[in-house]
């Protein structure tokens, strides 16, 4: 039986932040479901590792710093006819409000907000997205549904992404391009490790999740696959919360 409404066979999917965590797993899952994948990030060694794990052939990789115009131009010049775009590159920041200087906001917004938005703008303007294409922003529950102490810069960047996602969903609908987001709770990736939150605090935090664990990159990748596939043909402007129930 070959019936699979979530198949990505014949689709060209572009994934940012593909050298690690959620982006890496998303690229791998997309390849397993038949997509040809174009992956990007800054770190060559880690991006190559993702590339080596892609199934099937016809994939490619582009090294780029998404916070630079050269990086964005480079990407835009090599891609075409994209059926799926996953804007996953991002960074975390934990800092209490009174320490949140403009510089910190800029550091986070440059990666989490301005880079995916500018990249999408260029892809739309240069007509690099195929009819019926699907764009997925990797947002967060943070700043959208959850307001963890010390998370205000990161949260604001994700709230701005969610707002932009909805505007784009309306404005790109005439081009038959769908725009959605996934909004994960805490996921086991390098992003949450070894930082301001200790392993012990993470363990206690996990207990607050109704499903008693943090997410794995696959949990998020599968949601992204749904939004890329034709199974979600009538879904646009939606935020798919994948969070083990933490925001209930």
């Amino acid at each position: 039986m070959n019936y699979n409404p979530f198949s990505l066979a014949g689709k060209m999917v572009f994934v940012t932040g593909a050298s690690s965590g959620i982006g890496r797993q998303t690229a791998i899952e997309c390849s397993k479901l038949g997509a040809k994948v174009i992956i990007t990030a800054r770190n060559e060694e880690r991006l190559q590792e993702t590339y080596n794990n892609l199934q099937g052939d016809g994939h490619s990789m582009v090294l780029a710093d998404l916070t630079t115009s050269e990086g964005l131009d480079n990407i835009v010049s090599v891609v075409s006819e994209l059926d799926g775009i996953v804007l996953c590159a991002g960074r975390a920041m934990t800092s209490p409000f009174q320490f949140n200087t403009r510089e910190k906001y800029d550091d986070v917004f440059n990666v989490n907000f301005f880079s995916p938005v500018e990249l999408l703008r260029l892809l739309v303007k240069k007509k690099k997205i195929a009819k019926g294409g699907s764009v997925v922003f990797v947002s967060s529950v943070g700043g959208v549904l959850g307001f963890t102490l010390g998370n205000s810069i990161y949260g604001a960047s994700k709230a701005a992404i969610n707002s932009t996602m909805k505007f784009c969903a309306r404005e790109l609908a005439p081009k038959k391009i769908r725009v959605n987001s996934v909004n994960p709770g805490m996921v086991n990736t390098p992003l949450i490790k070894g930082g301001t939150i200790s392993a012990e605090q993470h363990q206690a935090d996990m207990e607050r999740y109704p499903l008693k664990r943090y997410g794995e990159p696959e949990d998020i990748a599968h949601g992204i696959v749904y939004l890329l596939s034709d199974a979600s043909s009538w879904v646009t402007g939606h935020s798919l919360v994948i969070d083990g129930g933490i925001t209930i």
Partner: protein
Amino acid sequence: MELKEFIENFVALFDETDASEIQANTAFKELDEWSSLIALGVIAMADEEYDVTLKGDDIRNSNTVEDLFNLIKSKK
């Protein structure tokens, strides 16, 4: 880097605790006002004032204010 100045920066993270309650040998996690948000404030203060990156575990492994001071000094 001066201990006296560090203690002043540390005290500034608190609102309810009198400065006299915070000395070099104070076990800061036992202060009533101590919280996870103030812990994040310590990390942000170390970054802003001393350009030192502390981790959550560094706070967990320190007991007194002077422990924190010595740790930051050693990382400078």
